[in-house]
C-alpha cells in the first residue's frame, strides 16, 4: 500500500473540476441565453454533497480497492465532462416554452442532474484520498485547492486561445493524465495502466473531434442560419463571447430597427454580427457614399442629431459600428467608440476593414477597447452626445430573457457617470425596444430621473424628451433645459417620420398617440407620473417592476412582480404569456429542484442508512446548515457584485470562485494550527466587520478602479476577497474538530447538512439578490454566521 497520497493527481483533478465549472457557464451562454452560473454552482455543490454521502455509506466496501476506484473515478470524470454536457444538449429544454408546457420542467431537472454527475465523480475521487490518507489531510487539501485556483483562472487564459468545445476536450485529456499519474503515484499494478491512460490522454487531446455545440433553435443566430442562403463567414472566440459573422447574399440582412414607415430607402448590404448567438448587430457595407445610409436618419435614435449640431460623440458599446456610422452620417465632429471585446474591434479593423469602409480608421473616429463605465469614469472629456447602444436583440428582450442578468450599464450610478461627462448643452441618448405595456422605457425613465436628482438637478422635467416609433423608444437627457427651438425640431422630426411624442417639457395631454396608436397613452402618462410627487406611488402600483435599477440591484431587465404574477399567469392563454418574464419562474423552479435533489441525494440516503442512529443535535445541524448557507450567500453576492469591476460575468465567476476557494482553504489551515477556543467567534466578528466595510467602500472603490487593466483588477479583487475568505474558512474545520472531540459519529451528517445548504444557498442567494440587493444578501450572510456562532456554543 502506498504511503504517499497522489498529490499531483489530486491537483490535476481539481484543475479539471473548477475549470469545468467555469467553462459550463460559457457553454450555457452559447447554447441557451443566460450564463446560468447559479444553476451550475448549485449542481457542482450537489455533486460534491452526494459524493460525501456515497462515501460515508460505501466506505468500508471500497477501502480495499481504494487505488482502483480512485483511478476509475478520474477516468470516468474524463468521459463524463463532455458526455454530460453532450447529453444535456440532447435534452430539448426550451425555456421559452416553460410556462406553456410543464414537461419543460423535467428537461430542466434532467439538465441539472446531468451537470451534477461529473462533480459527483470528482468529489468521490478527492474524498477517497482524504478518507484514505486522513493524517495528511492538510497537504492533500493544499494540492486540491491549488489545483482549483489554477483551474478556475487558467480556463480564462485557455479560452483566449481555443474555442470552448476544444477546452472541454483538453479537460478530458487532463483528467486522463491525472489517472495516469495516479497509477504512478499510487504504485499500482500493472504499470501498463499508466501507458494506457497516457495514450488515452494523448488520443483525447489530438484525435477526438470537438463536440458540436447545439444552440437552442430559438436563438437569434440559429434563426438567421435557417434562412435560405445564410452562412457563417467568421467565428472568433474569447472568454467574453463567441462572435459569429453571418453573410447572406440571397436574402440579405437588412437591419434598421424600427425604421420609419415613411421611409422609402432600404439599408445597404449588411453582415450580421452575433455574440453568443444573440443579435444581430449590423456590420453595414460602407463605400464612402453617405447617400446609401439615408435609413440611419429614419430611426428614432437619429433625433439627437437634429438637436445638437456636429457634436463630439461618445458611443458606448460600439460593436460593429452602426451608431458610429449614424454619427458620421449626421456630420459629427469626432466620435469616440468604446467596445469591450477586442475580437470585434479586430474584425472591423482587419477582416472586414474594406467591407466596412475602414469605419474604425475614419478621420475623427477613435476606438477604445475598454469597459464602458470604466472608460467614462476615467475620462476627462466632455461630450456633446453620449450614446448608449441598443445591444440586446428585440426577441430576447421581449421574452424577458435577461430578467436575472445583472447589467451595470443601466443603473442610477451608471447614468450619473454618463451625465457627468456631458458638455454644458450636451445630451445623453438611449434607445430601447418598445415593449407593451411599457416596461424598460419607463424603468429607464425612472432611473434617469433618479440619477438627475442624485446629481443635484432641480428641474429634471425640463431636461427630458422621449419619443417612440412602432418598435423603438428613444430617450434624451440634456445637461440643461431643452429650448423651444429644440422642442420644435423634435416635433418636426417625429411628424415627418410618423413617430410619436411620448414626453417633452410642457407637453399637453392629447399630443401623444398621433401616428402609432395605443389603447392608452401609456408612455406619456407614465412619464408624467414619474416626474410628479406621486412617483413612488406610481412605481408601487405599476404591475411591472420599474423601480430604478442601482448598482446594488442591477437587474434592469427584471420586470417581474409577485403581486401581478397570478393575474399574468391566468392570462397566459389569452395572449398574456409574454407579460411574464421566464427568467424568474425558472429561478424559482430551479430552487425547488435543487431542494428536492439535495434531499434525495444527500440527506435521504443517510437517513436510511445506519447513520440514522447517530442523528446530530439541533445545534449541530443548525451550525453546519448555517455556515453552508452563509458561505454561498457571500460567494454568490460577490460574484454578481464583482461583475461591475471585472466587466464580465465569466471573469467574475472565475476570479471570485478562485479567491474564495484558495483563501478559505488558507483560513482552514491556519484555524487548524490556532489553539484558541473562541476562534469561530473571532472569525465571525471579523467577517461582520469586513463585510460592513466592503458594503460601504466597494461602490466608490469600484468607481475609482474600473478603468484599470484586467490583470490589475483581478489581482486587486483577489486581494480584497482574501481576508474575508480566510475568515470564512475557519468555521467549518473548527466545527468538525469540536464534533470529532465530542461525538465523532455525527460527522457524516455535518458534511451532508453543509453540502445540502450549499446546494440550495447558491440558488437562494440569486433569488434574494434580485429582491433585496447584494448588500442585504451580504448582511444576511453575516447574520447567519452569527447564528452559527451561537449554535456552536451549545454543541455538546
Amino acid at each position, binding site marked *: 500500500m502506498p504511503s504517499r497520497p497522489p498529490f499531483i493527481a489530486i491537483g490535476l483533478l481539481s484543475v479539471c473540476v473548477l475549470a469545468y465549472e467555469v467553462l459550463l457557464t460559457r457553454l450555457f451562454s452559447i447554447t441557451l441565453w443566460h450564463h446560468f452560473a447559479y444553476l451550475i454552482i448549485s449542481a457542482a455543490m450537489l455533486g460534491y454533497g452526494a459524493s460525501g454521502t456515497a462515501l460515508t455509506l460505501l466506505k468500508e466496501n471500497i477501502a480495499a480497492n481504494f487505488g482502483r476506484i480512485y483511478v476509475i473515478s478520474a477516468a470516468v470524470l474524463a468521459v463524463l465532462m463532455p458526455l454530460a454536457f453532450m447529453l444535456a444538449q440532447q435534452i*430539448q429544454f426550451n425555456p421559452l416554452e416553460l410556462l406553456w408546457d410543464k414537461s419543460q420542467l423535467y428537461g430542466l431537472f434532467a439538465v441539472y442532474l446531468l451537470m451534477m454527475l461529473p462533480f459527483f465523480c470528482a468529489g468521490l475521487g478527492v474524498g477517497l484520498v482524504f478518507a484514505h490518507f486522513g493524517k495528511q489531510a492538510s497537504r492533500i487539501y493544499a494540492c486540491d485547492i491549488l489545483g482549483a485556483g489554477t483551474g478556475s483562472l487558467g480556463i480564462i487564459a485557455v479560452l483566449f486561445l481555443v474555442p470552448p468545445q476544444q477546452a472541454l476536450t483538453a479537460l478530458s485529456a487532463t483528467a486522463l493524465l491525472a489517472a495516469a499519474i495516479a497509477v504512478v503515484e499510487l504504485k499500482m499494478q500493472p504499470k501498463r495502466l499508466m501507458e494506457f491512460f497516457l495514450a488515452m490522454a494523448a488520443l483525447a487531446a489530438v484525435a477526438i473531434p470537438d463536440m458540436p455545440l447545439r444552440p437552442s433553435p430559438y436563438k437569434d443566430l440559429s434563426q438567421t442560419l*435557417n434562412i435560405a442562403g445564410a452562412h457563417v463567414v467568421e467565428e472568433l472566440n474569447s472568454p467574453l463571447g463567441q462572435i459569429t459573422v453571418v453573410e447572406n447574399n440571397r436574402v440579405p440582412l437588412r437591419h434598421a430597427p424600427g425604421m420609419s414607415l415613411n421611409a422609402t430607402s432600404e439599408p445597404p448590404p449588411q453582415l450580421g454580427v452575433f455574440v453568443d448567438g444573440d443579435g444581430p448587430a449590423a456590420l453595414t457595407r460602407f463605400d464612402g457614399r453617405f447617400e446609401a445610409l439615408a435609413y440611419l436618419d429614419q430611426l428614432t435614435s437619429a433625433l439627437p442629431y437634429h438637436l445638437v449640431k456636429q457634436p463630439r460623440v461618445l458611443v458606448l458599446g460600439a460593436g460593429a459600428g452602426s451608431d458610429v456610422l449614424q454619427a458620421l452620417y449626421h456630420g459629427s465632429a469626432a466620435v469616440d467608440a468604446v467596445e469591450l471585446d477586442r475580437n470585434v474591434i479586430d474584425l472591423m479593423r482587419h477582416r472586414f476593414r474594406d467591407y466596412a469602409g475602414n469605419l474604425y480608421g475614419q478621420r475623427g473616429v477613435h476606438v477604445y477597447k475598454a469597459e464602458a463605465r470604466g472608460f467614462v469614469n476615467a475620462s476627462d472629456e466632455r461630450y456633446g452626445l453620449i450614446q448608449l447602444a441598443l445591444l440586446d436583440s428585440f426577441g*430576447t428582450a421581449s421574452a424577458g*430573457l435577461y430578467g436575472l442578468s445583472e447589467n451595470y450599464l443601466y443603473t442610477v450610478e451608471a447614468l450619473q457617470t454618463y451625465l457627468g461627462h456631458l458638455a454644458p448643452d450636451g445630451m445623453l441618448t438611449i434607445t430601447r425596444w418598445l415593449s407593451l405595456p411599457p416596461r424598460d422605457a419607463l424603468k429607464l425613465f425612472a432611473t434617469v430621473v433618479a440619477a438627475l436628482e442624485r446629481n443635484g438637478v432641480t428641474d429634471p422635467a425640463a431636461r427630458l424628451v422621449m419619443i417612440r416609433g*412602432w418598435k423603438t423608444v428613444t430617450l434624451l437627457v440634456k445637461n440643461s433645459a431643452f429650448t423651444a427651438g429644440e422642442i420644435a425640431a423634435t416635433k418636426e422630426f417625429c411628424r415627418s417620420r410618423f413617430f410619436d411624442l411620448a414626453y417633452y417639457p410642457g407637453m399637453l395631454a392629447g399630443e401623444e398617440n398621433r401616428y*402609432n*396608436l395605443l389603447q392608452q397613452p401609456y408612455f406619456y402618462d407614465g412619464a408624467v407620473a414619474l416626474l410628479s410627487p406621486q412617483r413612488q406611488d406610481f412605481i408601487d402600483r405599476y*404591475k411591472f417592476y420599474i423601480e430604478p435599477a442601482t448598482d446594488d440591484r442591477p437587474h434592469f431587465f427584471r420586470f417581474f412582480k409577485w403581486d401581478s404574477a397570478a393575474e399574468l399567469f391566468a392570462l397566459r392563454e*389569452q395572449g398574456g*404569456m409574454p407579460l411574464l418574464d421566464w427568467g424568474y419562474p425558472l429561478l424559482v423552479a430551479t430552487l425547488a429542484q435543487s431542494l428536492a435533489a439535495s434531499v434525495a441525494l444527500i440527506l435521504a440516503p443517510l437517513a436510511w442508512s445506519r447513520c440514522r442512529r447517530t442523528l446530530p443535535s439541533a445545534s449541530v445541524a443548525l451550525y453546519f446548515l448555517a455556515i453552508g448557507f452563509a458561505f454561498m450567500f457571500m460567494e454568490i453576492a460577490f460574484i454578481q457584485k464583482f461583475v461591475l469591476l471585472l466587466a464580465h460575468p465569466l471573469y467574475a465567476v472565475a476570479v471570485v470562485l478562485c479567491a474564495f476557494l484558495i483563501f478559505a482553504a488558507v483560513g482552514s489551515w491556519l484555524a487548524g494550527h490556532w489553539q484558541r477556543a473562541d476562534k469561530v467567534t473571532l472569525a465571525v466578528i471579523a467577517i461582520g466587520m469586513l463585510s460592513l466595510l466592503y458594503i460601504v467602500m466597494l461602490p466608490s472603490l469600484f468607481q475609482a478602479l474600473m478603468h484599470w487593466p484586467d490583470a490589475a483588477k483581478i489581482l486587486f479583487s483577489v486581494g480584497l476577497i482574501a481576508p474575508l475568505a480566510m475568515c470564512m474558512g475557519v468555521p467549518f474545520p473548527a466545527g468538525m474538530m469540536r464534533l470529532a472531540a465530542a461525538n465523532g459519529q455525527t460527522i457524516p451528517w455535518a458534511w451532508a447538512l453543509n453540502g445540502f445548504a450549499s446546494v440550495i444557498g447558491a440558488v437562494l442567494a440569486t433569488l434574494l439578490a434580485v429582491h433585496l440587493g447584494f448588500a442585504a444578501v451580504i448582511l444576511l450572510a453575516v447574520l447567519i454566521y452569527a447564528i452559527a456562532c451561537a449554535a456552536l456554543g451549545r454543541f455538546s
Partner: protein
Amino acid sequence: MGFQEAVEVIGIYSPGQGREIYATIYWEKNLKRHFALGALLTFALTLPSHGDEFNAARSMMMEEVLADTAATSSYSGRTALDPRVAAAMSKVERHRFVPGALAASAYLNRPLPIGYGQTISQPFIVALMTDLMHVKAGDRVLEIGTGSGYQAAILAEIANSVYSIEIIEPLGKQAGERLESLGYRNVKTRVGDGYYGWPEASPFDAIIVTAAASHVPPPLLKQLKPGGRMVIPLGAQFMTQYLMLVEKQPDGSVTTRQILPVRFVPLTGGH
C-alpha cells in the same frame, strides 16, 4: 410504450366526450417526445374514423378562442370575432399543420414548435390577426412567412387568393406541398426573400408579416392598396408581445396601432 398500450391510449378518444377528450389530449402532449408513438397516433387518429375526435377538439378550441376574443374586445377594437374568421378556424384542420408527434396537441390554445426554430401561432392570436386584416371574399392577400401554412389556409378560406412567401427553404417546401395536398388551389407559395413582396400579384388588400423583421419593408407598404391593412406580430417565438396593425389611408399616408392581445391594465385602479 408498446403497440398495445398505444392502442389503449388511442382508445380513450371516443367521440362526444367533450372536455374529457380535451383533457386527455392535454395530458397527451407530455408524450410528445416519444416520436414513434406520436407517429402512430397521427397515423391512427388521422384515419377517417377518428376524424370526429379532432372535430370535437377543434370546436373546444373555437369556444376558447371566442371567449378570449370577447374578453379582449376592447383591446382589439372588435366586439366579436368576424363570423368568416370563426368559420374558417372551425373548418381548417390544424392537426394537419403540426408535426406528427404533436397532432394530439394541435387544438390546444397555445403555440407549438414546427421545426427550424419556428412556431405555429396560438389559435387565439391567429384568429385575432386574421380578424384585424378585415379580409373579405374576393380579396387578394399576401403573407410573408408561410411557416406551417396554417395561417395561409385560414386566409384562403375567406379570401379569393393568397400569396405566401417563406424564407426557410425546407419549411416553405413542406408548407407548399401540404397546402396543395389539402386542396387549397387559391394559395400560391414561394420560397425566398419576402422583402420585395410579390410585385406581379400586387396590389394587395391585406398583408400579414409573420417573419421577424427589424423594420417594415418599404416595398411591402407600396404593394398594399390604399385602404388596405397590414398586420405584424411582434415578439419572440412562443411569445407574441403585441400586434401591429398598419392602415394605409386612401391618401397613401400610414397610421399604426399597437395592439395588446390581452386585456391587461399595467396600472392598478387609482385610489
